[in-house]
C-alpha cells in the first residue's frame, strides 16, 4: 500500500503542538454549535461518521491497510447497542459498552482471518466478510431484517443526562467523539504507532529489524474495528434506529470516500471529509438520486486535482503535519 500513501503524506516531522492547537480550535467550534442555529442532528450524524472515518484512517493511513468492510463494525455495534437498549432495557452507558464489545469480538475474528493478506487481497477479504455479515443480518430475527430495530429508547446517561433532549444528546455525542479522537491521536503518537508507521513505510525492513509485523497489524485492526464500533453505538442514539444501511458495502465505500476527500494519513482529514460528505447528502438531498452522481464527480475531481485531500493539501502547503 506504500504506493497509495507515499505522495499523500506530508514530509515534515510531526509537530504534536500544532495538532493540539487545531484540536482545541475544533473542540471549541463543535462545542459552540448549539448556539449557532446549525441543525444539531446533522452535526451529530457527521460526528459519528467522523469518528468512523478516523478509526478507518488509523488502519489505512498509519497501518497501510485498506479495509473495504469497515461498515461491519459500525453496523454490528449498532445492532448490539440497539438490542441491549431496547430488548434488555440497559442504560445508555451499558448499551454503548455492549456495542463496543460486539465490534471488538468481530474485529478479533475478522482480523485473524484477513490480516495475513496483503494489499488488494486484504481489501477483498474484508469486503467479503462484511457482505457475509450483511446477509446474516438480513436473515437474523433479532435485527428485524429490512425493518431494522426502530424506536430505540434514549434513556438517561449515567442516570443523569436525559438523552431525549437534543442539546444534552449533542454534548454526549461530542464528548464521545472527542474521547475517541484523542485516543486515536494517542495511538498514532505512541511507541506502537511508531512501529505501525515503520511497517507502513517499509514492511520488509521492519521484519528485518525483528518485528513480527502481523501482530502489530492485527492490533491496529482490532483497535480500528473497536473504535468504529464506538461510532456505531453513538449513532444509535442519534438515529434512534439500527438498520441494514449501516452494514451495507456502500457504507464501507463512503468511509473510504470521506477519508480520501479529507486527507489520508492526516489527523484531521477524516473529520473534514465526513462533514463534507454528510453535508452534501443533507443539502443536496433535493436532487434525489443525483447525489450519488455528484458525489462520484467530486471524488473523481478530488483524486485528480488534490490527491492529498483537503487537509493533506493544506498541511503540504504549510509544510506541517495536521
Amino acid at each position, binding site marked *: 500500500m506504500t504506493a497509495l500513501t507515499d505522495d499523500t503524506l506530508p514530509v515534515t516531522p510531526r509537530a504534536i503542538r500544532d495538532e493540539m492547537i487545531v484540536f482545541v480550535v475544533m473542540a471549541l467550534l463543535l462545542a459552540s454549535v448549539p448556539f449557532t442555529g446549525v441543525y444539531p442532528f446533522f452535526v451529530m450524524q457527521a460526528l459519528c461518521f467522523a469518528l468512523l472515518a478516523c478509526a478507518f484512517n488509523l488502519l489505512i493511513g498509519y497501518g497501510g491497510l485498506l479495509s473495504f468492510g469497515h461498515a461491519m463494525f459500525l453496523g454490528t455495534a449498532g445492532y448490539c447497542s440497539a438490542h441491549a437498549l431496547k430488548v434488555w432495557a440497559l442504560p445508555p452507558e451499558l448499551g454503548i459498552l455492549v456495542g463496543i464489545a460486539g465490534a471488538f469480538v468481530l474485529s478479533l475474528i475478522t482480523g485473524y482471518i484477513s490480516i495475513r493478506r496483503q494489499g488488494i487481497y486484504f481489501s477483498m477479504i474484508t469486503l467479503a466478510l462484511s457482505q457475509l455479515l450483511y446477509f446474516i443480518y438480513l436473515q437474523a430475527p433479532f435485527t428485524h431484517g429490512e425493518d431494522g430495530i426502530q424506536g430505540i429508547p434514549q434513556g438517561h446517561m449515567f442516570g443523569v443526562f436525559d438523552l431525549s433532549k437534543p442539546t444534552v444528546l449533542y454534548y454526549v455525542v461530542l464528548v464521545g467523539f472527542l474521547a475517541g479522537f484523542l485516543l486515536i491521536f494517542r495511538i498514532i503518537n505512541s511507541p506502537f*504507532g511508531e512501529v505501525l508507521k515503520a511497517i507502513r*513505510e517499509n514492511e520488509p525492513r521492519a521484519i*528485518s529489524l525483528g518485528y513480527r509485523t502481523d501482530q502489530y497489524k492485527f492490533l491496529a485492526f482490532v483497535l480500528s474495528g473497536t473504535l468504529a464500533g464506538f461510532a456505531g453505538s453513538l449513532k444509535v442514539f442519534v438515529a434512534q434506529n439500527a438498520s441494514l444501511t449501516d452494514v451495507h458495502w456502500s457504507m464501507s465505500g463512503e468511509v473510504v470516500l470521506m477519508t480520501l476527500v479529507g486527507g489520508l494519513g492526516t489527523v484531521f482529514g477524516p473529520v473534514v471529509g465526513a462533514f463534507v460528505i454528510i453535508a452534501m447528502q443533507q443539502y443536496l438531498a433535493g436532487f434525489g438520486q443525483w447525489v450519488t452522481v455528484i458525489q462520484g464527480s467530486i471524488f473523481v475531481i478530488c483524486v485528480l486535482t488534490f490527491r492529498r485531500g483537503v487537509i493533506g493539501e493544506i498541511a503540504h502547503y504549510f509544510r506541517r503535519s495536521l
Partner: protein
Amino acid sequence: MADEFILETEGLTKEFAGFFAVRDVALKVRRGSIHALIGPNGAGKTTCFNLLTKFLKPSAGKILYKGQDITAMAPADVARMGLVRSFQISAVFPHLTAQENVRVALQRQHGSSFDFWRSKSVLNVFNDRARELLNDVGLSEFANTPAVEMPYGRKRALEIATTLALDPEMMLLDEPMAGMGHEDIDKIAALIKRISAKYTILMVEHNLSVVANLSDIITVLTRGQVLAQGHYSELTKDERVKEAYLGAGHA
C-alpha cells in the same frame, strides 16, 4: 566447529519451477570476517541472500547459525537472534527522521512496542543512543531530516546505523554500494571496514573491484553454484573465475 564458523549452509538449494537459482551451495562464514559473495548477473547471489535471511524458503538444504538449525525459522525471529540483513534498494522508513529510523530499531528490545496508550515521549530515552549511532556513521547533522530527503549515499549509511542499533552479531549486506558514486563508495567501504572489527559481515556484491580490498574471503557464484572461493589475490589467478566472471576484457 560451530565456534569458528558463525554461519554455515549445507546443500542449500532453491528451485523455481524447474530452474535452479541456487544449487547445492555449501558456505562457511568465519566469525569476525568480511565475507563477500560475488558473481555475474543472475548467478543467484540475491536468491542465496534471501535464503540466508529467511525471506525465501529453501527447496532443500540446511542453514546453521551459531550451530543452530534456522532453516525453518521466520525472518523476524532470525533477526532477533542477531542475524540482521540490509536490502539492495535502500531500506529506510522515508517519512521518519533519521533519528526516528534508528529509534524504531532500538525500541524493539525495550518491549514497549505494543503500548498504544502511552505517549511516544517514553521513546526519548533512546535519543542519546540514536545520536551516538548516527554520529558513528557521520550523520549527526541529518538527525532531524526525514529520510526521504537525504542523499542516496546517506540513506545507505542510515540503513547501516539502523542495523547497528540492533547490536547484531552478524550483518548481511545486499550490495551495499549499488548505485553509488565513487566518493560514497569509499565512505561506505571505510564504514564497513570499521564496523567489521565488532561484527561478522557477509556482503553480496556485483562488482569484484569493490570487494577486492575490503573482504577477507570471497566466494564466487555462477549459475547458482559455487565456482571458487579464496582471497582476492588467489581468485584473480584462477582461470575459471577469469573466464566465467571477469570476462575477456579483464584478462
